[in-house]
């Protein structure tokens, strides 16, 4: 399945710099339709308003973390199938296992590069 470059992507991170970096990397990969949110609460709100083809989220945010957002999304009938990639500095085994159990589609450890981002997006969409 080819990755749809026009699909809307939601980037969730409380650091504007990181949002900007991910936006630029996505742009380099051909994705131009990118929204962003500063934490899980804002992201979940946005997801109620617009259907996203992919969510790329940080873990450690307040008030709602990316891990909580993931669980909310997976428990929501309308959103549960949304592809979800975690990009985080949380680099302990228990985080990866917890995220996987909560239904994450892929997991990227910060710092990362464009190649890793592309390979994980490709993997999520079965390329």
């Amino acid at each position: 399945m080819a990755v749809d470059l026009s699909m809307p992507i939601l980037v969730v991170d409380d650091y504007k710099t990181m949002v900007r970096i991910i936006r630029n990397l996505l742009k380099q990969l051909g994705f131009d339709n990118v929204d962003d949110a500063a934490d899980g609460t804002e992201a979940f709100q946005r997801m109620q308003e617009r259907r996203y083809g992919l969510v790329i989220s940080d873990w450690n945010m307040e008030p709602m973390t990316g891990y909580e957002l993931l669980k909310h999304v997976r428990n929501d009938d309308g959103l549960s199938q949304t592809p979800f990639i975690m990009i985080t500095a949380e680099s302990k085994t228990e985080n990866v296992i917890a995220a996987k159990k909560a239904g994450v589609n892929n997991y990227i450890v910060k710092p990362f590069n464009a190649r890793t981002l592309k390979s994980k997006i490709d993997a999520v969409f079965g390329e």
Partner: protein
Amino acid sequence: MTQSSSSPDSFFPEASGSDVSSQALIADALALAGKMEKLFDHPDRAFSDADHKQFQKIANAMVQMRREIARLQANEIVTVRIPEAGRELDAIVEATAGATLTVMEAVETMMSTKTTGGLKGYRKYVEEKCTEILEACSFQDITGQRISKVVETLDHIKLRIRRVAELAGSDEPSPLSGEESAREARKKALILHGPQHAEDAISQSQVDALLSGFDEEGPLTVSQDEVDALFG
């Protein structure tokens, strides 16, 4: 105050000069309080030489404790050192954010620009932007120095607090406040460890290996090699 019923001679442990251990000091203080309680009940009773020595010992220890508390310079720590460390950290955040912004703007401009003057013109343009990036990287020198100052402050506080804690015989961690407990509980529930040092973190390839150990439906299965790799 259970020690108040002991015999006077057993109230105080042997002390060697002014080198009073903190545990003994606490025991002494308790015993002394009990003894004084008895004396107040019988004001006609005189202190023995041994009592005087013990009172002197307690007084010396109290002087020593006061000296250490004075050396702690708690006021200076709270009003000068910690705010200064906070200002240094703010400046670090500002400097790194400023540098990152400069670098990103330079890169974004390079990526989107349409220069005139062909390859030569483009090269000149890229070189200018690269110079801006190099200049922005100078933040590392200043922030490094600022971080050293913060570390120095933390060392200063640690040394003084340890000295007082040793004197007070307190090697137990103090209980967490309600706010701290709530913060710790949130961290634990939401698995918030934050960035790890290189030796504690797992790599992207280890993450990939872990994820590939999951079946679509089934439980986590990780090979021994993958487990071994995780534990170095």
